[in-house]
């Protein structure tokens, strides 16, 4: 019983950064802007959250600063792709590289270290075996992360803003003819994606109580894979995030038991991904105007 609870709790802890980033990425992608940038937003969010918490002593202010950092990077991406019509893939890669460089530079400037920051105030999930699930509430970003998927689904399918997002992502010309400002909707969607992905990064930094160089470690790309896996639907993308997190947890737990050669265990998340992509998803149809002006 406690093993199953431990598995569930670990899956949820691992899933939270994926859920935040995927929720943000779905919004931007549905508005027609490619979300290769999630990785950079996460890293930027992790760094600014740490900095905010370091200067204020409050992880809550840290999380807000994380959002601000993500939005700043997102607006840069939005200006280059929407205002100056730069190629979204190229701009996305540039943003990711910029995030790596900027965080490294300021880490050195503020903490005189190229590896990690000082310890800051943060949130940690409780891990006593008695209340593994209740312990998750100790870190408020975990329930937020689980709630963000239904919120984004509601935003996308039940609000006028969501309708506009979907319209500019599928058929921007049609949206323009009915008086929707394509640019404005896209700016807002990209800024929101920056804010949400940055919260995923903030979760990483505040859970560790510090920032370490490159700490997002590819999670933004996994979230992007989850979006494609979930066919650009927030709920399905959220399920995909949980699926990836469960595969990682399985890998961790099986490695610990040492019953199976580690090489096979290390393959689990990748093999499961391929199997699921081939077998379950079928043909993935991106928003029609994704990557176009």
């Amino acid at each position, binding site marked *: 019983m406690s093993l199953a609870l*431990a598995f569930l709790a*670990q899956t949820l*802890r*691992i899933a939270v*950064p994926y859920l935040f980033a995927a929720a943000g990425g779905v919004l931007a992608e549905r508005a027609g802007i490619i979300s290769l940038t999630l990785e950079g937003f996460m890293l930027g969010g992790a760094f600014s959250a740490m900095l905010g918490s370091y200067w204020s002593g409050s992880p809550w202010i840290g999380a807000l600063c994380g959002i601000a950092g993500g939005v700043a990077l997102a607006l840069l991406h939005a200006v*280059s792709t929407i205002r*100056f*019509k*730069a*190629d979204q893939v*190229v*701009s996305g890669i*540039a943003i990711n590289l910029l995030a790596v460089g900027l965080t490294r530079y300021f880490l*050195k400037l503020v903490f*005189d*270290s*190229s*590896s*990690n920051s000082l310890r800051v105030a943060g949130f*940690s999930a409780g*891990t006593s*075996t008695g209340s593994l699930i209740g312990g998750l509430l100790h870190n408020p970003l975990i329930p937020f992360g689980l709630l963000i998927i239904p919120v984004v689904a509601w935003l996308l399918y039940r609000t006028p803003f969501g309708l506009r997002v979907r319209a500019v992502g599928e058929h921007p010309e049609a949206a323009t003819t009915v008086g929707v400002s394509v640019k404005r909707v896209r700016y807002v969607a990209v800024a929101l994606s920056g804010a949400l992905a940055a919260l995923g990064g903030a979760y*990483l930094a505040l*859970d*560790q*109580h*510090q920032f*370490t*160089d*490159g*700490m997002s*470690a*590819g*999670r933004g790309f996994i979230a992007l894979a989850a979006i494609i896996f979930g066919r650009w639907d927030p709920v399905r993308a959220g399920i995909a995030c949980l699926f990836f997190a469960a595969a*990682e*947890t399985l890998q*961790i*737990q099986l*490695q*610990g038991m*040492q019953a199976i050669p*580690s*090489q096979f265990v*290390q393959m689990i998340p990748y093999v499961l991904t391929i199997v699921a992509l081939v077998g379950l998803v079928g043909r993935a149809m991106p928003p029609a105007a994704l990557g176009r002006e």
Partner: protein
Amino acid sequence: MRSLLLVIGALLLAHIALLLAHPAPAAIAATTGGLDVGIVFDVGGRGDKSFNDGAYRGGERAEQALGARVHFIEPGEGSDREAGLRLLAAEHMQLVMGVGFIFTDDLTALAKEYPDTRFAGVDYALALDSAGKVIPPPPNLAALKFREEQGSFLVGALAALVGKSKKLGFVGGMDIPLIHKFEAGYRAGVMYVCPDCTVIAQYAGVTPEAFRNPGRGKELALSQYQSGVNVIFHASGSTGLGVFEAARQMDRLAIGVDADQYAEAPGHVLTSMVKGVDAVVLDQIRRARDGSFHGGVQEYGLAEHGVGYIYDEHNRALIPDSVHARVEEIRAGIIAGRIVVPAVR
């Protein structure tokens, strides 16, 4: 399309500008007389609290003790590592050092190109030919290796003696032979003092990212602590910072690596398996001065102070005197050759 070309053009321009601008601070003309030594840092540069800082200390000590002039180059990502080494070689440094296994190929190529310059690679990774035999490095290149398994053996014995549990933990970074060496030594050390103990060994991944993923490190450590492990040894770069965070949260112990990591989680760091990068750098600079420098593989183990473990006023309270005496006894046994430490799992 035009905008794409513009962006690429701008990036390319910036890149070229950076390439030109970067090595400038180090382009100090080598003066005649005295000992000029060039050291190129691994990615991250100074402030990594590990290899690079160790090399910097070694260089500083060489400046004070030997009167050497040490020129440091801190490369960015990727290709300018080779440019840094080449610059130093072209400046006729008496010794050019690369810090980190990542310099292996560049050093080998440059040593062949500049046969009159002395090169040294810290943590040099020996290549194997198709028949599986070690390809010897060029005669003017000192391949400096650490016997990580010996230091790991000691901390393994220490962990088993202090741990109060039959289960011991190990968290590795990337699943590669270099890290398997740590695991092998640790495992052997645990078994040496406690034959019926088991070691749970886990790796953070199969890519270099596995050394920079503290989130994963924390989850691995949490699952080990929850399964009854009391002490975890990590050999995983900054992924290990997550292991320390888990140790704090669960109020257990962890063992640091490469440098003294006590400050990362005071009270929860049992000890650290340290590599004496500073001692090795100093030793090579001294050899270059005395003329006793020679190429080939040179291994630094416990006897040469290349590896060791921390026992000082911070962690003395965590280690009973009898345990310390036992570990020192084992250390003497390894140095005397009475105990043979395996380097492979």
